[in-house]
């Protein structure tokens, strides 16, 4: 097991009360695997990633029964120790490549910075060569010239390639891609996803692919977990989750996609009524029960837990197959 998370809880103390952003989150990732995390905005996808990178703000209160990376505990790490892991063993690609790169430095320098920190065995010249090699690997034409350019001189797709080069510079074991293609056009998105897949296969790297686009995860992830209001509500192989969803929320998300469900021209799309709950005032019982079409009394009185089957679901009345 590369990464093992058990009962992770994350709370924020605010002036308007405590926000319980992540509740009892458990999951794991094996080497070389792609885990897709989907959910609507505000469901806790991004903050989970920041927790895994040790990038939480000071106001966060993180507790967990287990948070292990390659068998070593991440919870007790000090900032200095985090710095050794971050960028070397666990790397991250951010959503918006235009703002994630520093506009004041050349992209070559920014990639070299990572190497300078983590690859002490390389000399300055070797590092420079390695940067060109990396840029070439991520499919940037004329890497020697491009290394001298600044972020504003590159297109969105090119900037995202630079971000990927930076992330894979130290051959990480786990790559967290937080909405890596949301800001890009479809044809460029296609290229970037293919590139990530190739790199992953070559380096036997595990990847967490976070996105709100169900199409992207279904085509690229081995396993999918669906999050709602800071909890995992369904988890399974991408086939199981996409083609025979068990949780009413997953079903609802899939049905509301145009081009899925009733595909006839101008057919009304089924949608989930209501809105994501305010995390300061969580509903009692199942978090989804106020919006759920199958909701019964039991749903608002007690809280369902993820069952321990291969295709996990946290629902008292899971949908049957088909």
């Amino acid at each position, binding site marked *: 097991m590369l990464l093992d998370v058990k009962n992770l809880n994350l709370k924020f103390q605010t002036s308007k009360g405590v926000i319980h952003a992540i509740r009892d989150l458990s999951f794991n990732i094996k080497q070389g695997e792609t885990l897709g995390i989907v959910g609507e905005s505000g469901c806790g996808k991004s903050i989970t990633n920041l927790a895994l990178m040790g990038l939480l703000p000071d106001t966060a209160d993180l507790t967990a029964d287990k948070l292990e990376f390659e068998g070593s505990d991440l919870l007790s790490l000090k900032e200095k120790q985090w710095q050794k892991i971050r960028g070397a063993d666990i790397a991250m690609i951010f959503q918006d490549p235009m703002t994630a790169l520093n506009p004041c430095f050349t992209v070559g320098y920014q990639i070299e910075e990572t190497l300078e920190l983590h690859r002490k065995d390389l000399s300055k010249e070797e590092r420079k060569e390695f940067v060109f090699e990396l840029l070439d690997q991520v499919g940037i034409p004329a890497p020697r010239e491009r290394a001298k350019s600044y972020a504003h001189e590159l297109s969105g797709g090119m900037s995202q390639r630079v971000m990927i080069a930076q992330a894979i510079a130290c051959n990480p074991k786990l790559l967290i891609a937080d909405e890596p293609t949301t800001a890009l056009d479809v044809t460029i998105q296609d*290229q970037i996803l293919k590139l990530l897949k190739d790199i992953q296969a070559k380096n036997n790297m595990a990847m967490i692919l976070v996105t709100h686009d169900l199409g992207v995860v*279904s085509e690229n992830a081995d396993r999918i977990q669906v999050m709602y209001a800071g909890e995992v509500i369904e988890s399974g192989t991408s086939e199981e989750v996409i083609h025979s969803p068990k949780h009413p929320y997953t079903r609802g998300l899939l049905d509301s996609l145009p081009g899925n469900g009733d595909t006839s021209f101008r057919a009304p799309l089924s949608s989930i009524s209501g809105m994501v709950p305010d995390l300061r005032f969580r509903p009692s019982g199942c978090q989804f029960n106020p919006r759920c079409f199958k909701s019964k009394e039991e749903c608002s009185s007690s809280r369902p837990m993820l069952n321990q089957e291969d295709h996990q679901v946290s629902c008292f009345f899971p949908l049957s197959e088909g």
Partner: protein
Amino acid sequence: MILEVENLKKHYPITKSFKESALVKALDGVSFKVTKQKTLGIVGESGCGKSTLAKALMALETRTEGSIKIENKEVTALSKSDFKSAIQMIFQDPYSSLNPRKKAWQLISEPLLINSKLSKKACFEKACQLMEKVGLRPEMAQRYPHMFSGGQRQRLGIARALALHPKILICDEPVSALDVSIQAQVLNLLMELQDEMGLTYLFISHDLHVVKHISDDILVMYLGKIVEYGPREKVFDKPLHPYTKALIASSPSVSIDKNEHEPISGELPSPLNPPTGCAFHKRCPMATDRCAVDTPVLETKDGRSVACFEV
């Protein structure tokens, strides 16, 4: 024909001192027609001229050349208020398109205050009716935009666009900033309003599934030019232009039959320095020597227009 656009061009001059001025051809000879109560879907990558087209139609940008006719009348001949009640627009980002210092009813009734002689009280009542129409409770009229969620804000934007009873509504990526479940609600609302009020939509989106769901006709643009234009069944089910094919292949879907395909290479070329011949030839898998020299024109083929030599 409610809207007829002929050979619309928008060129931006780039002038630098001591240098020859260059032209960015953001729109280069775009022509199309829309019938009443139909939807024209406009797709293409960023920088292809979709938004410039919307702005030119709204007269937010002056066009360089071409004609725009609404109900057979040239728009320049229309009076200001006639023009404004003929065509309105919904914007992409519901967060930045609403003035944070105005209350919901003020936002919605602003077009009325400017273009009609209604009293403030009548405007307020009209705004409440409009809010009800787009699925917002009229009690919310006194709230400020930050008190609404993204989906509700987009409904406010729609209510504001409907205030003057326009005939044509330009929707510039109206759902791309919204979550899927909210996106479905807003799309349903747009379809209901269309049937109820007899609206004509120009629907701009980069999400092909959304466009396919609600558009009667599809217009595919690349670097300021139309590459394929025709009814939805033709363009989506049997695309002819290699760019349309690539767009459809690369848009991710949740369907069971996973499409195995090679992504097309390269990126949208710079409009400052467009390639010679067909603008797509450098990325095109079917390109021949001729494509680099001659520019293909739109020709009718199999029930749609397409600009390519190789089909």
